[in-house]
């Protein structure tokens, strides 16, 4: 399969000729998410999509932190590491640097990645480790039973904020772009096709790929993404981004995204009202991330009625792990493999007879 699609991100991961099916990737563990949880849809998409990669399953590792989403690795018959809160990107860093032959995935949530693990996330992104990060964003704390999260809208009333939260939320896409990420995308649990397409592109990317997945929590934040799921509103709510294409959305491209040249900000207008040349053509591959950042600002900060989805940015930059390994091979090429005896006897020595 890998020959059909260029997959630089998986370049060094061994493939198999054996046909794989979704069943091969299911573990023997009973899935224990709440009924109706968006995590089921993501799990099904991942299990359904992994066989397409044709990788040896023992060379795939899922690393997670803490939270509902962090149970993900238990349900996949690959190698898995369910670690501690927020630290999965750090653990994945050591793994990815040590083992170029692995496909390393991080599964995290909005609390795990953006609160307790915010530091590790931004540094993994800027270093551009060859890992794929799936950020399940349900805009709430689920496992601790319903406190507001760093992506909850301001004013959110929860158990810990009875008078409403006074925190300004993060926009994970804006944050990732600010952190110099080379691959930044957003998708949604309810759109299997879009989800799979983004996952495939993320896996193909060589470098840190951040995929924000809007994921509904039916228990503590039900309906957070309703605008994107309701057939009547979805078309006008989701702004699909496709590289090289004008950014339009709504039924029959009813709306278009144009730039205000004074502020540089993007805004939506009725397509019929503007000159076609003014419609922004999405460039995910440009090295300047300003346009991608401005597009990310089209996301509602409060309750979600509108948000762009798709790949905001996808550029090539050397990865940390490749460069770390290159330095080692360069040192070995220049001066040969390390010789322990010579090392211990280096410097000023003297002999005692």
């Amino acid at each position, binding site marked *: 399969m890998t020959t059909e699609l260029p997959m630089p991100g998986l370049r060094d991961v061994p493939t198999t000729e054996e046909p794989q099916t979704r069943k091969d990737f299911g573990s023997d563990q009973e899935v224990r998410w709440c009924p109706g949880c968006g995590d089921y849809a993501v799990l099904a998409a991942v299990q359904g999509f992994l066989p397409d990669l044709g990788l040896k399953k023992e060379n795939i590792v899922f690393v997670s932190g803490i939270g509902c989403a962090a149970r993900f690795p238990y349900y996949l018959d690959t190698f898995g*590491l369910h670690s501690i809160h927020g630290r999965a990107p750090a653990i994945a860093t*050591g793994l990815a640097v040590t083992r170029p032959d692995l496909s390393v995935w991080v599964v995290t949530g909005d609390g795990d990645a953006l609160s307790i693990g915010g530091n590790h996330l931004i540094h993994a992104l800027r270093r551009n480790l060859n890992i794929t990060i799936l950020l399940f964003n349900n805009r709430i704390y689920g496992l601790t039973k319903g406190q507001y999260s760093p992506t909850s809208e301001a004013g959110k009333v929860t158990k810990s904020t009875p008078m409403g939260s006074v925190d300004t939320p993060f926009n994970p896409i804006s944050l990732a772009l600010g952190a110099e990420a080379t691959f930044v995308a957003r998708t949604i649990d309810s759109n299997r096709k879009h989800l799979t397409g983004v996952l495939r592109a993320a896996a193909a990317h060589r470098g840190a790929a951040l995929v924000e997945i809007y994921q509904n929590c039916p228990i503590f934040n039900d309906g957070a993404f309703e605008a994107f799921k309701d057939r009547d509103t979805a078309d006008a709510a989701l702004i699909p981004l496709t590289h090289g294409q004008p950014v339009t959305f709504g039924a029959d491209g009813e709306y278009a995204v144009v730039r205000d040249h004074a502020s540089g900000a993007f805004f939506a207008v009725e397509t019929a009202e503007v000159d076609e040349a003014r419609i922004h053509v999405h460039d995910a591959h440009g090295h300047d991330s300003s346009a991608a950042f401005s597009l990310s600002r089209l996301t509602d900060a409060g309750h979600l009625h509108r948000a762009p989805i798709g790949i905001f940015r996808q550029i090539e930059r050397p990865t940390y792990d490749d460069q770390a390994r290159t330095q080692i091979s360069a040192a070995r090429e220049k001066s040969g493999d*390390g010789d322990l005896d010579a090392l211990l*006897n280096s410097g000023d020595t003297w002999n005692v007879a």
Partner: protein
Amino acid sequence: MTKQVRQLDRVIIRFAGDSGDGMQLTGDRFTQETATLGNDLSTLPNFPAEIRAPAGTLPGVSSFQVHFADHDILTPGDAPNVLVAMNPAALKANLGDLPKGSTIIVDTHDFTNRNLTRAGYNGSNPLEDDTLDAYDVHQVDLTTLTVESVKEFGLSRKDASRAKNMFALGLLSWLYGRPTEPTISFLERKFASAPDIRDANITAFNTGWNFGETTETFAVSYEVKPAPMPAGTYRNITGNVALAYGLIAASVQSRLPLFLGSYPITPASDVLHELSKHKRFGVVTFQAEDEIAGVGAALGASFGGGLGVTTTSGPGIALKSETVGLAVMLELPLLICDIQRGGPSTGLPTKTEQADLLQAMFGRNSEAPLPVIAPRSPADCFDTAVEAARIAITYRTPVMLLSDGYLANGSEPWLIPDIAELPAIEADFATEPNHETADGEREFWPYLRDPETLARPWAVPGTPGLEHRIGGLEKADGHGNISYDPTNHDLMVRTRQAKVDRVADIIGPTDVDDPSGDARILVVGWGSTYGPIGAAVRQVRAAGTPVAQAHLRHLNPFPADLGDVLRRYERVLVPEMNLGQLAMLLRAKYLVDVVGYNRVRGLPFQSSELADAIADLVSSLDQPDHDPWQQELRR
């Protein structure tokens, strides 16, 4: 003029100056010359946490003490015989440590009113009043002599005067008959790209030597003959470099790639610096975004089949504890090297202490036991690192290694080991399923244990058929799936403890040094106090009193016979640079009424104070009402 040469058996020199005066370099070079000559030696660098405190002030004083001898020595020495003071502040800060009659070589250049005031000599000049009457003082305007000697190189006055440390080094090298070639070739290498600076430094160094040789200032020079030492090749080594080499050796011996995840922190950063030079050994050094990421990445490397290591000091250990607890749960090899410093909190970053023992033992949530091991001298950091890796890999466990600031920066001659004698370390990765189900299917159970070591299999990603999931949640015994079963949890807690306890099987009995067999008192120590305790024990024995010494490398588990050893003596003295942490562990575990001797000054013990403490305890033996704890509290 032929000058008199006097034989000495040992000398302690302290170089002291402003933190910008290059005293550490001067000390290092003198040490290297001394090592090449074949003396036994021990060094103690002592510098402020500030990189450049205001010039000429007491907080800005940096010093380097070197003790060298024609016999085997154990410490950098209690008090200097010679002080080289580069300015008034250096004199004032160090004079209190100098016994009457010691030699002072002082650069007079900075003894101006302004600098004297800055150093706290208000309205008086110690070179002119009676402050130094009890000492053998040599006043030399080192700065002016240096500037004059390097005139031809056309340096600015500031650059020219910076070579004064080399003048001082040259003078001291003459005074103690040190070889000059190593320093000249060192300067040639160091300043190869700046010929005028190179030539100025070499000239200043030679001029300093000639100044000693030709002027009347010094009537006598000294000779300290080489010490008889076991045959072999030696080099001088600091604890941090020895630790880095030990980690590389462990990687070579285990054939596991070394991965260091670390965040810069004093006094551990030099291990990161050293390891980052050795990429040819496949060493990856990852300078992480924080302490937590450092250990997290190391653990990730271990999960992938590498030798994961993190290096830090006490504050970093506090941050890493949750990940170390995860490593306890995952039962993966991991080395955590704590180069201890004064605390709590930021404490004394550049000073030494050994107060992280209880943090190493218990600083994690719940029952999270791990082996703890401590080197006893700078060179011993090498063996201890290899030993720590051997335990971690054999038992699939995180291991805490407790070095400290004194070992890290101190140095001593090291008999370079024969690499053929290093222990083999077998990673012994799992390669196939290890369990058969009732219906005859082969499965892999990640928590099925080796019956002898209780270690679980290390199955690295990429091994077909061994796909499995592990994590921080409690595991069911054997198959390792999540389990909340009460009985299983009790079993797993006890099993993790039992596994660490079994490390005692491979560490051997307590090494007790009791040559006469008549000692009534045993002195027990751990870590960097080995030198001062050993020197104190020698002093007490030389005075005719037998005393036994045992120094613990393994703090968890203790050697299996330790309780019996402790009970064999009437009294056990435990000197520590903390308020009694090992003493607490010994009392708790063995119900032995050990006596502490505790000082937490940021400096190593002096052997004389320990000799006094031993003598006090000896003299109390036959006094029935004596309560050593009360005596300790009164101190």
